[in-house]
């Protein structure tokens, strides 16, 4: 079955021109058949409608065999590259493939690929009815059996929690301040992620109902009993401050600490050399900052990160800036100074700077002019005839 499916799919793929290589390196006693190509169905996993993929094209044994082959191939690849097979990660595999098979193609989907079969072959539903044609699941005839069974499960759990609460109320042990599930730092599964989990397509309305039901479960005071169930349908959000790249501090020949930073705003770019010498002098493109920025607002922008951290007189700054106008140059320098200051600050201070809006590059640019209009927003004068 696998071979036939491979052939039919292969012909389909040959038209699409997409190829994935699944390694099957040969053991030493076989002939040189290095690449037994198994053409994978990359076209299928680009299709959005999972339910319409039809009954399974790959049986369970086939997938299991692919997983074994993948693992063996991974070990062979590790040996080839001279790495330890036990600690060979997916990133290492990607790098090795890119090294062994350099591809001049631009499309990432057309380049050679070696990934775990679970990522390559789409998740598909097992056949849902037996040999006599009778479906296994009692909700088969709803059309969305996994979704409705999930809703049933959630509601059953909500009822169980309410029953537990009633029992506690009967005994007189009911308190409002029971331990609550912590929802901060996580978000609900997106509709696409839920579809992937259920291997079924659901509508926006269905998704909204699901979220509503989960919120209802969470509104009960004693819902912490179902925490595992709820957390399965939530994804953790990463802490934003960990995304900041902080350069280590450098020291010059006199032992004075210094760091550099650069920033951009509209079309202006600026670089700053911050020195921890304690004099508080600022020079921009060779001139004093008071002469370079005669406008108060621009000077305030330069001082903003320093004043915010309370280090006004501590640093010496040598700035260079070009492009843009006076406001955008000041904004670019502000970002550069904030970035340079990160090396001198602790984690908590970095987070406060981020929350003050000092570390985000300002994305606003001049809006383009559109055809049929005089400017970005202004329309031509309307003439009745």
């Amino acid at each position, binding site marked *: 079955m696998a071979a036939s499916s491979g052939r039919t799919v292969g012909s389909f793929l040959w038209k699409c021109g997409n190829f994935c290589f699944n390694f099957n390196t040969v053991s030493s006693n076989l002939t040189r058949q290095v690449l037994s190509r198994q053409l994978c169905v990359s076209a299928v996993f680009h299709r959005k409608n999972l339910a319409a993929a039809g009954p399974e094209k790959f049986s369970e044994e086939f997938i299991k065999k692919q997983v074994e082959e993948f693992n063996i191939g991974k070990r062979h690849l590790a040996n080839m590259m001279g790495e330890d097979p036990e600690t060979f990660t997916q990133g290492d595999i990607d790098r090795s493939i890119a090294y062994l098979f350099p591809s001049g193609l631009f499309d990432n989907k057309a380049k050679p690929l070696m990934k775990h079969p679970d990522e390559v072959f789409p998740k598909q539903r097992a056949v849902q009815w037996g040999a006599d044609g009778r479906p296994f699941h009692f909700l088969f005839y709803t059309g969305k059996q996994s979704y409705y069974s999930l809703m049933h499960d959630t509601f059953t759990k909500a009822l169980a929690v309410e029953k537990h609460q009633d029992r506690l109320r009967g005994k007189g042990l009911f308190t409002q301040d029971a331990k609550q599930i912590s929802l*901060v730092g996580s978000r609900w599964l997106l509709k696409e992620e839920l579809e992937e989990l259920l291997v079924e397509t659901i509508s926006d309305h269905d998704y909204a109902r699901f979220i509503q039901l989960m919120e209802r479960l969470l509104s009960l005071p004693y819902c912490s009993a179902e925490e595992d169930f709820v957390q399965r349908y939530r994804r953790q959000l990463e802490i*934003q*401050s960990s995304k900041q790249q902080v350069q280590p501090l450098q020291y010059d020949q006199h032992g004075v600490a210094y760091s550099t930073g650069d920033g951009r705003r509209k079309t202006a770019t600026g670089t700053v050399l911050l020195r921890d010498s304690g004099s508080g002098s600022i020079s921009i493109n060779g001139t004093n900052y008071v002469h370079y920025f005669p406008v*108060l607002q621009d000077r305030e922008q330069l001082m903003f990160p320093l004043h915010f951290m*309370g280090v006004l007189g501590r640093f010496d700054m040598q700035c260079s800036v070009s492009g843009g106008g006076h406001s955008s140059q000041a904004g670019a320098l502000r970002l550069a100074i904030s970035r340079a200051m990160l090396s001198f600050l602790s984690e908590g201070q970095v987070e406060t700077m*981020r929350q*003050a809006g000092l570390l985000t590059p300002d994305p606003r640019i001049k809006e383009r002019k559109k055809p049929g209009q005089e400017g970005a927003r202004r329309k031509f004068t309307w003439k009745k005839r």
Partner: protein
Amino acid sequence: MFIKQAEQLKLEKQHGQVDSGHQGVIRPGRVFLVRWSRYNPYYLEPEPRKEVYHIPETELTPEQKEERELKSVRPIKAATNSVTSSVFNDPVLSKFVNMMMKDGDKIIAKGIITQTLENMKRKQVEKYHKAPEGKKAEIECNPYAIFHQALENCKPVIGLASIQKGGKFYQVPIPLTDNRRRFLAMKWMITECRDNKHRRTLMYEKLSQELLAAFSKEGNVVKRKHELHKMAESNRAYAHYRWW
């Protein structure tokens, strides 16, 4: 990272709340999107004031704690050009400067405002020195305080909307949001100073006169506010024409 927002009325209706990305004019039931943002609505507003970050953990209310935790996982927008952590940074004053500005020339607008504040201070200090001992404490010399109080005195409480019913347009009294009230007060102040004063006086002089008058609840701007209130009171019968 930064997604350009297209007009998404459907998004508005689905989520039933205003994204920060869309600064639209809302009449409940209808949303007119007038502006979109270079930022994804996921981004939160920055908080540039220093004092907020020096409150120790123990003194935070649960809402503030939750807000802090939310901020730690969400990206934050960049602070704008006109905002600093300095004590002299005043959002109301910045808004007033922006409304005074013509053709994007903020330097001139800011200069006028600075001169206005200086002028007000001079006048008040002159009054202070001339006043007898008992009256000295009552004279307000801080120009920022005078500005805020004057603006407060000019803000209308109730506004009028033109609603069509049965072929005729009626002026119906409606409640105003805080932003709208502040905007009207500032607009009236600026138009009053531009139009109804002597041609040869400079803007800062006109503004300082009008602001000091508004501070003591006299002058044309508070008169205009009172007239609006009277109109609203007289049109009270049509109040039920408002459906929101």
